[in-house]
């Protein structure tokens, strides 16, 4: 029983596949399905990060800004001034480590404020959402970076064994996340912390340290999402990642992750991502008018939410 609670969205996914297939012959082709997965790969990493943070009872809005800022800053550190960089002359191979490092630093700073200063996670990460985006806008002056080192483009654009590398990466990370949260003591401790932090502390879990680690990991995953997105788009615009966070939350929550902490699974979050990806794809294929698209889209999220409520059987929070 408990095992299947994660998968309340599976019927929704099946339904969407069926509806899509009826509406458009293109829909069920492997090309289109691959496209859907590839399009969701980057955002799914942010969902993975947010799911872990939510499960441990916290909140991070700033991830969306890290998606743009971490790769932008890393690129500026390595490219010459003529290409929009700082002209520091750092070697180009460092761009990915630097990017992940920037993500980790943002996560660590969030964790520092939230855990050490015991500030509200919502407002801290909201402020950081603004600040981190500003840290991209400021140095780039809002310009798109498009002379990028090849290494940062590779992951988001390569194909491995006939599938985009981004899909493999997301799949592996979701697998790892799912196993980690299911079978690692450290992973299980996120549930304990999110469920009752005092009890977790009494049980000897190093609550602060674990939470901090989760924030850092979240930042790193967001930075990696930024790398995939950069490779897919071939440039880093000022808007990269902007506006994602709502979709990220929607995916996690319809996938069964509770906003109150302690509840939900990585697999569930993945189904949430897939639902959102399928809906977007179907709406695009059908060419629903841009004006009315939000209504259809929001409506489908509501329906998915209701189905997951009915299938899950429990009140949500």
């Amino acid at each position, binding site marked *: 029983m408990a095992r299947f609670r994660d998968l309340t969205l599976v019927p929704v996914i099946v339904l969407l596949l069926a509806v899509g297939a009826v509406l458009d012959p293109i829909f069920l082709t492997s090309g289109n399905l691959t496209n859907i997965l590839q399009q969701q790969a980057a955002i799914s990493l942010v969902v993975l990060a947010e799911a872990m943070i939510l499960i441990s009872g916290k909140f991070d809005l700033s991830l969306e800004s890290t998606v743009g800022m971490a790769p932008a800053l890393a690129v500026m550190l390595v490219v010459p001034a003529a290409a929009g960089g700082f002209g520091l002359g750092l070697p180009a191979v460092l761009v990915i480590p630097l990017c992940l490092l920037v993500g980790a630093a943002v996560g660590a700073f969030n964790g520092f404020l939230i855990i050490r200063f015991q500030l509200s996670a919502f407002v801290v990460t909201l402020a950081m959402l603004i600040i981190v985006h500003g840290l991209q806008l400021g140095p780039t002056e809002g310009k798109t970076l498009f002379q990028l080192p090849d290494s940062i483009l590779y992951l988001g654009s390569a194909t491995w064994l006939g599938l985009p590398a981004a899909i493999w990466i997301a799949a592996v990370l979701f697998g790892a996340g799912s196993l980690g949260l299911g079978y*690692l003591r450290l992973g299980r401790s996120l549930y304990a912390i999110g*469920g009752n932090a005092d*009890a977790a*502390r*009494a049980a*000897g*879990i*190093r609550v602060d340290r674990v939470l901090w680690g989760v924030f850092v990991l979240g930042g790193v995953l967001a930075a990696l999402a930024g790398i995939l997105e950069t490779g897919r788009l071939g440039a880093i615009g000022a808007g990269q990642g902007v506006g994602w966070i709502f979709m990220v939350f929607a995916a996690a929550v319809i996938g069964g992750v509770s906003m109150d902490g*302690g509840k939900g699974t990585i697999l569930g979050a993945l189904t949430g991502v897939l639902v959102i990806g399928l809906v977007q794809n179907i709406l695009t294929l059908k060419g629903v008018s841009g004006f009315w698209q939000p209504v259809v889209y929001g409506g489908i999220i509501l329906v998915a939410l209701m189905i997951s409520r009915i299938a899950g059987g429990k009140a949500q929070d």
Partner: protein
Amino acid sequence: MIYHVEALNVVKRFGPTTALDHAGITIAEGETHALVGRNGAGKSTLVSILTGLQRPDGGEVRFAGRPAPALADRDAWRRRVACVYQKSTIIPALTVAENLFLNRQGRWIDWRGLRARARDLLATYEVDVDAETLAGDLGVEQRQLVEIARALSFGATFIILDEPTARLDGPAIERLFTRMRALREQGVTMMYISHHLDEVYEICQSVTVFRDARQVMTRPVAGLPHDELVSAMTGEAAVHYEARPRTPGQNIVIKAENLSLSGRFHDVGLTVRSGEVVGLAGSASSGKVGLAETLAGLRRPDTGRVEVNGSHPRSGDVPAFLAAGLGFVPEDRHREGFVPLLSVAENATVPIARRLGRFGTVSPARRRAEAAHLIRTLDIKTEGPDQPVGDLSGGNAQKVVFARALVDDPKALVVINPTAGVDVKSKLALLGAVEDAVERGAGAVVVSDELDDLRICDRVLVMYHGRIVRDVPRGWTDHELVAVMEGIEQ
């Protein structure tokens, strides 16, 4: 002599409250040591200091003569002491198995092995709970059993039990004691906190009494007169419960017929008259709590309806029941009893808010006055009417819940485990409050696992497997009642 556990001159303050004022305790190796005191005396605070959850403002803690480990070193604390806290440390979203082995599952979890170990553990302590259910789906009592099993399973040489029996019924308590005796034979030291002094006599070798944040007495239990213990706790001579004679009136205040709720109780009928206290007794899972919650309007029965004070409030509509003149003390005070962030005054006066001002307003002054009165009559230990209930000690929070039930001068009272976690003196006060209400013309239903609570009842309805099997009039002995409850005698 080297004691196993020592707390010396401990001081702990919470804002203006001094919870521990140079208090201490010394526990010899291998003994079971009771800690007793009135609600708010500082017992649980000492527990949190002895288990390394809180740092004392002054004084020190020593284990086997050596200073306690640093607060951050949780592992070191866990090697020295295991604890059943008064406040639940169960994580509702995790399974029972995982709760039992929280943070000691091994780096990689072998779920099958974990479940097997959990089943073994539960079997050892005779806890009838499926290891795979979510802990949040358990009743209070089962949750408590899981906590106890977990604490006992650590293999620690020192175990603290903070009011473990407040939510257990007789047989469960007996099982716990058997377990504790076995542990003592293995040389385990225990500190035991309870408001049931007979338990102290049954299981402990020595006792420490706290009063008003200070240690006032430490004595061997053997040869210590009961009255002396009570007067050490209360600072005054012990008072004993005296049965108050009553004759029930004619008004029927609660009436139910053909009530059924699937899985809880079937085809139950009862009537309660004004001026009458009716007890509801039964062993675990007898359905008494479910029935009481239905009588209070908290649950919607599958069949039948409840009449309160001559009206038929819609079932499941608590406000309608309250409006019909019902007062209610829920089973789990943390869940349905109080709003922790709100003050004592606000919590206690919600049902009469409409009388505390005109045009839908509530006058804070009148609210405070009303609350001050309740604080006095129920002897609630608090900084004042404005203190949040979340900051009160467990027993005092229970009194606030009681205050809420009584504030509207109810015509019918339903109280579930009314004295859970309440000290001896307050217990008399609370039960007295029920009797006072009944003398003013109310009728009351008292549901309790504690036989002492049922002494005030004019008759006790005994439930067994969801049915009322006997109506026992006043004058029963413990033995008789338990026999009926256990289904030994029909």
